[in-house]
């Protein structure tokens, strides 16, 4: 199966354990949307261009992720509720390396 197991803790603190496909050219933001983990229109507002931070999440597991692009870093420098482990979900492609990843959605702002 071209899938990895991912745990997403939503904005209400509810834990969702789900399977994310590695062969669909999807990113973490799109996985959150496809499983309707948060209300529509509150995640991925800009469509995945690293322009809104509505998909900000905190990486809780110790996975080595793809490095941040300048755009992502810049967006996070302006966003609110940013922590050291903040990333934009839309900038994290779903790959095999993400097996077991645990993330928590940042509050809506």
């Amino acid at each position, binding site marked *: 199966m071209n899938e990895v197991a991912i745990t997403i803790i939503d904005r209400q603190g509810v834990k969702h354990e789900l399977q994310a496909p590695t062969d669909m050219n999807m990113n973490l933001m799109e996985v959150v949307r496809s499983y309707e983990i948060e*209300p529509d229109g*509150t995640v991925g507002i*800009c469509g995945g261009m690293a322009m*809104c931070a509505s998909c900000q999440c905190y990486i809780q597991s110790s996975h080595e992720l793809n490095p941040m692009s300048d755009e992502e870093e*810049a967006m996070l*420098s*302006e966003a609110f509720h940013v922590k050291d482990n903040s990333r934009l979900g839309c900038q994290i492609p779903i790959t095999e390396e993400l097996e077991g990843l645990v993330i928590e959605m940042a509050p809506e*702002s």
Partner: protein
Amino acid sequence: MITTDILIIGAGPTGLFTVFEAGLLQLKCHLVDALPQPGGQLAELYPKKPIYDIPGYPEVLAGELVDNLMKQIEPFQPGFTLGERAETLERTEDDYFIVTTNKGTKHKSKIVAIAGGLGSFEPRKPEISGIEKFEDRGVSYMVKDPEQYRGKKVLIAGGGDSALDWSIFLSDIASEVHLVHRRNEFRGALDSVEKVQELKNKGKILLNTPAEVVEIKGGDSLESLVIHNHQTDLTKEMAVDAFIPLFGLSPKLGPLSDWGLEIEKNAIKVNHTLDYQTNIPGVYAIGDVNTYPGKLKLILCGFHEATLMCQSAYARIYPDKRYVMKYTTVGGVTGFDGSKKEAPKAVVKTID
């Protein structure tokens, strides 16, 4: 009072194209948008990004698409109320709608087409407790009149283009400009970043990074700010006349959600099998702002929705008129400005 046939809320691609389709039916349009320029997200967020799924365009820059749409609708002389947010919707006894903006501009029409995309773009407000109390009393989220800062001590927070550009601009007007940003890196046009560096070296902009405004103090109006520097871990209080947090814009459905429309998933429910009308007859919702089973938020879907919506609007405005859709290749395009575009006529002539 501005009167028109179709009042369009939102001047994004869907709203703009509505003007064209309405124009073919000889219906006049007026557009209201909270942003100061037409184009919606395309102009505000990503004018330089290419779009690849506009039929007939293998690739087009978002800004270019807006320019082209503006050109396409020019013959239909749309009116614009820009920089104002549609605030209220009322229905008159004779079945017209009155839409009033936050600045009090009133618009009257038989049809309202909401093409509001993700909503109106509102400045993102930092979470500093009590900041609301000082809004317009020293705190503003956008610079409306730079002159009001003449001779004042101003603190700008943010790390993007607008924070940089306003710091540069106000450095000539204000007595002191402080720029506070959470990181040492700024995101902006190279020119702006270099200019800020230069002004910082000259002491015309006082930079404080990586730092954040953590507290706001004052009586009736803003008096001072408490700034925490993350690197030195030092906190200091500074007296200022003005605080301008510039953290970008975020779209909010805003006042539309109080118009009595059926809302689902932060979008307006419409009759998708027919004409994209909302639960209020005469009010339509098209483009990214609407929702129905299978909805896709794509520009090309917005264009389609606008086209069907205009046919329905025509039938509402002129219930007794008979009409059939006419191809532009057949009928050409006759503008309200007297311009006429049409296919060149074939010549019927004997060849001897």
